[in-house]
């Protein structure tokens, strides 16, 4: 005897149609909305920056002197704090001398978006400060080469080793504890050591990127490899696959799209080590450009150079993502 009545069962949740909820967990977005939001994610911070730069009553803690009046230590183009400007005006009024004239402005380290935009062009046309200095495009090229070689060397060691650790428990026990320890050591700490061993030019810089990337890479690649679907390995075993061919024909192809995604993330990390690496030994590349420009207070150029790193990084990643979709047509997670 069964005496229980079951209330109306839940309607099948449809993903995009769970009514009566204002916060819908992971509800899908329309293509249009996705594009709009992606554009907004850039437009919003730039709008905020523009507002602070162009709306005079927002922030603007300093005053840009246009006419020093009778204040002898003011000069046209000088930035002073609002407090000292008000003090000088009060003094001028009291002593009946000509008061200084100026407009509210932001500190020199916050150039307006327009100035930075112009600097994107002018920084390429600005000749190097030193005689043997580099133009911006040369500096960028130097940085790209440092990143490239650092990442290639790290990957040549880290990817095979990671795959081996992920596929073989013995290799994992032999390699991973040390890699776990080493990844906590900050790469820049090896700066002086790298210079002592490898000289002051490209060597130590590439070494810092390798040290910063390699140990994380081994562990991440190993972890991804471990996630290979073991039932596929068993299927291959019953089809007569043996030993290392299991690795090359089953384990690696099955995790290849994930390994590719890992490499994209790791390349991002390599970029974050770039600036530290370039400051070691003889400063080079984009870091040299940034340091020199900020020494001359050309902050618009500094921002432009920093933004260029971001554009290069994001651009590379977008290209790699598109390439990934071409390379792995079976991988639905990438679609």
């Amino acid at each position: 005897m069964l005496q229980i009545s079951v209330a109306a069962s839940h309607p099948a949740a449809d993903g995009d149609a769970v009514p009566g909820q204002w916060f819908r967990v992971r509800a899908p977005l329309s293509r249009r909305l996705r594009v709009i939001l992606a554009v907004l994610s850039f437009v919003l911070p730039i709008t905020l920056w523009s507002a602070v730069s162009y709306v005079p009553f927002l922030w603007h803690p300093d005053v840009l002197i246009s006419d020093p009046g009778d204040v002898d230590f003011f000069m046209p183009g000088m930035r002073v704090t609002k407090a000292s400007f008000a003090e000088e005006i009060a003094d001028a009024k009291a002593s009946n001398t000509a008061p200084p004239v100026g407009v509210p402005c932001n500190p020199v380290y916050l150039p307006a978006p327009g100035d930075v935009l112009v600097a994107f062009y002018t920084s390429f046309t600005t000749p190097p400060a030193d005689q043997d200095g580099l133009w911006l495009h040369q500096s960028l090229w130097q940085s790209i080469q440092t990143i490239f070689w650092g990442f290639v060397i790290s990957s040549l060691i880290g990817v095979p080793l990671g795959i081996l650790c992920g596929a073989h428990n013995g290799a994992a026990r032999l390699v991973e504890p040390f890699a776990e320890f080493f990844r906590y050591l900050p790469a820049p700490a090896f700066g002086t050591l790298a210079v002592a061993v490898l000289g002051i030019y490209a060597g130590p810089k590439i070494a810092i990127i390798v040290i910063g990337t390699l140990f994380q890479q081994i562990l991440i690649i190993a972890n991804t490899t471990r996630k290979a679907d073991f039932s596929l390995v068993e299927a291959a075993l019953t089809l007569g696959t043996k030993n290392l061919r299991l690795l090359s024909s089953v384990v690696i192809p099955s995790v290849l799209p994930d390994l590719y995604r890992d490499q994209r993330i790791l390349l991002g990390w390599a970029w974050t080590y770039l600036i530290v690496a370039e400051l070691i030994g003889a400063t080079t590349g984009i870091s040299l450009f940034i340091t020199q420009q900020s020494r001359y207070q050309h902050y618009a150029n500094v921002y432009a150079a920093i933004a260029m790193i971001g554009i290069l990084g994001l651009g590379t990643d977008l290209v790699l993502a598109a390439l990934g979709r071409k390379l792995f047509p079976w991988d639905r997670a990438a679609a």
Partner: protein
Amino acid sequence: MSVPLSHLDQSPAVRERLDRMKAREVILEVEGLSKTFQTGRSAITALEDISFRTHRREFLCIVGPSGCGKSTLVRILAGLETASGGRVLLDGRPVNGPGRERGMVFQGYTLFPWLTVRRNVMFGLRMNDIGHAEAAKQANEWLGLIGLDKFADAYPHQLSGGMKQRVAIIRALVNRPRILLMDEPFSALDAQTRALMQSYLLEIWKKVDITVVFITHDLDEAIFLADRILVLAPHPGRLQELIEVPIIRPRLPGHCHSAEFAATKARLDALIHHTGRPAGEEEVYPTVPLLTDVRDEVE
């Protein structure tokens, strides 16, 4: 240990067919197989003293309640797990580790997602050092046999569940194994597809010289497919009875309503659902309190 053999009434035609089958050479022989899993200090016996043999072109089903170790048994036959005792002989030679002469179809979909359907079928041949052109030729023939040649260049994720398992079957068969092991291969499919796949499997089996060991928990499926059904009892997994299915071939969906089918089903039901636990160990279900005010009789 000899297994009790049930003698359901067999028509002369069925008897003659089974006699002919049993006169054929023995392909697989299992002798006193046992398996113990060590968990911490205690050991769990999953299989105890399993012995049976299959003849060439036999279709053997293994059924039993959950916990009877039928999946463990087939994994040992495939060489994916090692036995704790006893041995498995294929064509009289002891089996050691997995090999191409024992093909396997798994419960889940195990087609390689990065390979097209054709390359999935070619996989086993390529692993056994058969040239690309020859492997592709054979794969195409087999795909033609199961009517999936149109999908040769598709990726597995573009196929339905039934299609995937059809490809998985020929991926194993293209290797020309001596025996095909199937571990609940249709249990993830819906009821209609499963029925189609069963007829389909018999169709393939009829055309190919292959011995099949098929694990299932679906008694109807076992009766419909098998020449003989091996019934396992749980805790520990051990042989209970070997049933010779008294239904003529070719099997047709209509046979499911025959008297022989019903008799076999009754025998299996009696073995599987009303045995096992010693007295006092019966599972007790708590009484469900009355949770409704609507006093309809639901009985």
